[in-house]
């Protein structure tokens, strides 16, 4: 059994990397994810982790280094925040396209402007369609667990895809929580050693990433899509195994809170959903039938799960902690995609989008209360007067 430590999301991520026996790590400093690398550097200096930390000259280089290292057969780790995430953008598709199961932590931060250090999901959501598995952890414990689960899923021979493990800047990266750090034997049972069959090895020469002709494009992209289609099955199995070995069970796709007889729910991802849950619990005390659904796996987006499990609610309020200008629906990407997922149930479920917490601002109890009240009004009247609200200006 592991032992419980009170640590931040950053330290929890580093503990997972240590337990995963990673070989090559590439670093570059940017708040708020930096603490992960500082912790790993200390582990290496103290002899607790046998890995090399390569000091990249920027985020683009970070991703380039792990691309090469993963292709040479090493288990790899990197990470970033904010504009660092977007600076590396060129390398994301080559990594997934060459089917290299690199893992990257993202400690969310706004892009510039506003240039503060605050958390927004905008950075990580920019990369949402690059062929990487992607999900948000809402507590330090979940950070540690998600890193381990994603290594296993990404390295599965049916998948072989890279993974972003995202956590809200400060709200998770810098907040302490009680974390059960598992022991190495448990992790060994859960996570087999990395084995890629497409490795750069002079004993078995092969070429990786040749230029192709247009006629070879459709099958190559389709193979990446098929690998993506395999994720859910592997993800479910990994969560079952995780529960068996570590005793913690997560729903792989949607965490439901007080939803049993709920009429309206708030839907979102990341740490702001902790606040939403607190407000939902207060409203339950007043007799309101409200709940919270927290998305855990953002890519692949669990369209079928949402359709199956959320068509029982009268109104769903989708909270986007991101700035996406001109997007369909007028809120953010979660709203747009939840509406798409629920399209087949028609008017049965009303949806409303809320954009909040931009620039690292809190989404307050009061704001969540207003959102729940708005949803109750929509559920009662069956009418959506306004599709999307930017907080705090429009609600």
């Amino acid at each position, binding site marked *: 059994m592991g032992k419980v430590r009170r640590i931040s999301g950053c330290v929890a991520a580093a503990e997972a990397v240590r337990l995963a026996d990673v070989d090559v790590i590439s670093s570059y400093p940017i708040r708020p994810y930096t603490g992960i690398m500082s912790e790993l550097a200390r582990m290496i200096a103290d002899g607790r982790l046998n890995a090399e930390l390569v000091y990249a000259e920027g985020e683009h*280089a970070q991703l380039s280094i792990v691309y*090469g*290292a993963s*292709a*040479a*057969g090493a288990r790899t780790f990197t990470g970033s925040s904010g504009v660092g995430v977007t600076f590396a953008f060129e390398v994301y598709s*080559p990594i997934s396209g060459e089917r290299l199961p690199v893992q990257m932590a993202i400690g969310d931060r706004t892009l510039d402007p506003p240039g503060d250090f605050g958390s927004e999901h905008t950075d990580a959501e920019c990369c949402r369609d690059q062929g990487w598995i992607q999900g948000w952890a809402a507590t330090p414990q979940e950070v540690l667990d998600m890193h381990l689960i994603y290594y296993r899923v990404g390295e599965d021979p049916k998948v072989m895809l890279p993974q972003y493990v995202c956590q809200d800047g400060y709200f998770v990266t810098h907040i302490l929580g009680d974390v059960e750090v598992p022991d190495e034997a448990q992790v060994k049972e859960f996570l087999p050693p990395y084995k890629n069959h497409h490795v750069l090895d002079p004993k078995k020469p092969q070429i*990786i990433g*040749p230029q192709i002709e247009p006629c070879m494009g459709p099958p190559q992209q389709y193979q990446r899509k098929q690998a993506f289609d395999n994720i859910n099955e592997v993800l479910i199995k990994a969560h079952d195994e995780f529960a068996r070995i570590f005793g913690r069970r997560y729903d792989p796709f949607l965490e439901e809170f007080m939803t049993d007889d709920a009429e309206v729910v708030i839907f979102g991802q990341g740490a702001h959903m902790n606040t939403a849950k607190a407000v939902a619990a207060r409203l339950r005390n007043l007799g309101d039938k409200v709940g919270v659904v927290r998305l855990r796996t953002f890519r692949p987006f669990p369209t079928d799960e949402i359709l199956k499990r959320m068509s029982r609610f009268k109104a769903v309020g989708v909270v986007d902690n991101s700035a996406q200008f001109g997007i369909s629906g007028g809120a953010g990407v979660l709203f747009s995609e939840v509406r798409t997922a629920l399209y087949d149930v028609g008017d049965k479920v009303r949806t409303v989008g809320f954009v909040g917490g931009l620039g690292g601002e809190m989404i307050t109890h009061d704001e969540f209360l207003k959102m729940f009240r708005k949803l109750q009004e929509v559920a009662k009247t069956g009418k959506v007067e306004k599709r999307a609200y930017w907080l705090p200006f429009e609600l």
Partner: protein
Amino acid sequence: MSEFERIPSIKKAPDEEYYVPGHRTCAGCGPALCYRLVAKAAGPNTIFIGPTGCMYVANTSYGCGPWRVPWIHAQITNGGGVASGIETAYRMLIKKGKYNGEQPNVIVMAGDGGAVDIGLQSLSGMLYRGHKVLFICYDNESYANTGIQVSPTTPYGAWTTFTPAGEVIPEGRKHFPKDNAKIVAHGHPYLKYVATGSIGYPVDLMNKVRKGLAQEGPAYLHLHAPCPKGWQFPPDKTIEMAKLAVQTGMYQLYEFENGKYTLSVQLKERKPVIEYMKHQKRFAHLKPEHIEKMQAFVDAKCAEVGITVPVVAAAQ
């Protein structure tokens, strides 16, 4: 530096080829000849990294490639970074008992864009961290696979589609080129070996590859690789152009170690630059004053590395 086997002559060079027929480079391609010589000198325990450029596009089209050793594509931006990752991975996997074999030679084959321009930051990062990687620039003096556009190593006065000559800009290319070997040579503490080479001098080139690979840390080679298509000369003149570049001093062959330049070819005299330029239509629009400017620039570059022999025009 560890011991390495010197190749005494072209006849005694290894027979084995690791860059083999089956590619789609232009007739008379200088960079393809570079690749063949580099692969021959490096041998089988080698991994090539190919940033986007001619040697990616022309070698790997249709999903196959002409290497008998592993090769991986890198972006034009990140040859140094990808090589850093591969070198580190092998070092760690061997250290941790996860790979049973020798550390392979890791060689980046970048064009002038991938080495001198958009890829320079990645090269510098790799050199400064001290990875045991041989970074080679095959310099054909333009972005050639995109259809001949100016790069930082395009000579003064050369036509490219981005530097056409016209009434307002009679010389076309106005800038003098960037000298990457010197840029990298002086500021990277682990870089102990920098050399220039030319396909006109293949034995010298192959021995520089071996010497580069024998270093404890990184090494940088800048190889002159004439391009018939971009420079507009007949494809059977590639080697002649390479030799003329050295004989005129347009391209200087040297090794740089311990703060000192050692010349690789002892010239008795230098030919005037016009002897090189007149064969290439990329310079055809230049006027005498432009040629004079070029001669003065080349004289200064030669003096920098210790080529002091006089310029002697051929007897009429």
